[in-house]
């Protein structure tokens, strides 16, 4: 059985169709990259799966998660799923964390909401979760507040809490976009490692083709609300198919890092005087 099956998903806001008959699926443990430029509809598609679309957005089509239809499901059921079977990581770790609550309390919060446990057990669980995401000195880290951590450490806390319930699916929307490149590399390594350990599926939404290709088994490309291409990183690079996907691939190669840099660097230019 597929983990997530999105079929003919359309989203309209007012009289605008912002996502237009999009279909894709994610198998258990599979990592799917959803890429596109701003306004392509990629984030709204992710929000629709999370059940977090703005009020007034109309959704048609089907989102089946672990066999259950989510389009039309009640708000209570959606919230229940978000706290258990569907984890979420967004661009700004700051906004996902409660500034008035310690890291430890937030880490066990998700688990404890579903399963009552004594304080000592909760504390040990928090330290364990903090250690799993590589927070330095986890015993001390769980007593800290979000503002006492760096951006990368905060995103580690968000990842730990999103995966604390061992969800079947992790939704990650631009999880490293706000981070420095060296921190991004460490967070992507952490995501790889935790997703492998837990065996969850991953939907990685990003504008950054290199990040998606590095992380995912398969990519889907959105442009103008439509899904325009789908395939492995290799096949997309070799044969993007749709012109919009080809343009995206070309632009990524023309602007991105080239490891053989000598050919690209301009030599000395005409001297301005």
């Amino acid at each position, binding site marked *: 059985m597929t983990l997530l099956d999105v079929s003919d998903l359309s989203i309209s806001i007012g009289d605008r169709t912002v996502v237009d008959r999009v279909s894709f699926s994610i198998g258990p443990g599979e990592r799917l990259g959803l890429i596109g430029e701003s306004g392509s509809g990629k984030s709204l598609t992710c929000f629709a799966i999370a059940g977090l679309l703005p009020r007034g957005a109309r959704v048609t089509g089907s989102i089946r998660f672990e066999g259950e239809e989510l389009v039309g499901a009640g708000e209570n059921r959606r919230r229940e799923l978000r706290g258990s079977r569907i984890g979420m990581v967004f661009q700004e770790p700051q906004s996902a964390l409660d500034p008035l609550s310690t890291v430890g309390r937030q880490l066990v919060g998700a688990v404890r909401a579903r399963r009552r446990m004594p304080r000592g057990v909760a504390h040990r669980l928090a330290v364990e979760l903090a250690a799993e995401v590589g927070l330095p000195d986890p015993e001390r880290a769980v007593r800290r507040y979000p503002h006492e951590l760096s951006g990368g450490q905060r995103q580690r806390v968000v990842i730990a809490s999103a995966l604390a319930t061992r969800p079947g699916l992790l939704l990650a929307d631009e999880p490293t976009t706000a981070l420095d490149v060296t921190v991004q590399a460490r967070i992507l390594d952490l995501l790889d490692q935790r997703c492998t350990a837990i065996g969850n599926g991953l939907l990685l939404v990003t504008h950054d083709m290199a*990040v998606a290709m590095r992380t995912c088994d398969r990519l889907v490309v959105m442009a103008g609300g439509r899904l325009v291409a789908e395939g492995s990183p290799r096949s997309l690079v070799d044969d993007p198919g749709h012109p919009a996907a080809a343009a995206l691939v070309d632009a990524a190669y023309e602007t991105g890092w080239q490891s053989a840099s000598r050919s690209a660097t301009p030599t000395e230019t005409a001297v301005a005087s």
Partner: protein
Amino acid sequence: MTALFELDGVGHRYHRSPESALAEVSLTVRAGRSLGIVGESGSGKTTLTRAMLGLLRPTAGTVAYRDRPVPIGRGHGSREFRRHVQLVLQDPYSALNPRMSIGDIIAEPLRIHSPRGNHRARVIELLGSVDLPPDVAERRPHQLSGGQRQRVAIARALGPRPEVVIADEPVSALDVSVRRQVLRLLRRLVEHEGLTLVVVSHDLGIVQRLCADVVVMQRGRVVESGATADVLDLPRDPYTRELIASIPPLPERKASA
């Protein structure tokens, strides 16, 4: 080769800050050799840019432009320097006055230097140089896309025929297709119109394509500098190596591409 900027032992410590934002930075920007200043947050690259523009007085060392100290502030004495050195910022939206027409925005620096002239023809010429049609002059910033706004910001900077344009993350806020357009434009200006760029960026791909020289900064210091091809192909400093190793690579493309 003419040295434009010459920085010698520049250091800066912000008021009440325990640590130096900048320490012992020495570098030279030569005419016709664009320089990339690469670093992550907290590297001091923004402080360094402000020192080069005369927007702060460094607490140590000297910043000279064409052998004269860079004037601090925006007073009369700085007018000539400001004509020669222009700035382009990351977010073109916040840099463009929303109530002014694009034509007026581009003409503004021209008026400062020659208040009486009719700048209409020059504005159209500048729009053309960044591949925008003349009728854009009548529009306002909110009517343009992000890429068009960044091109307007570049046109405005080019107006006074500067020797150097300092560009702070010039394409970071742009979608990849627009990023490509702006990058092509900057590259053309550098390669064919003799513009010397100082690109401040965390993005090595951008620096690789625009800059002949590079300095890599970490915690306020220059950890490595040299010709871009040398530094990026054979980085010697451990931090430069980490920076390069952190970039997710795109798959090797077939030769036909």
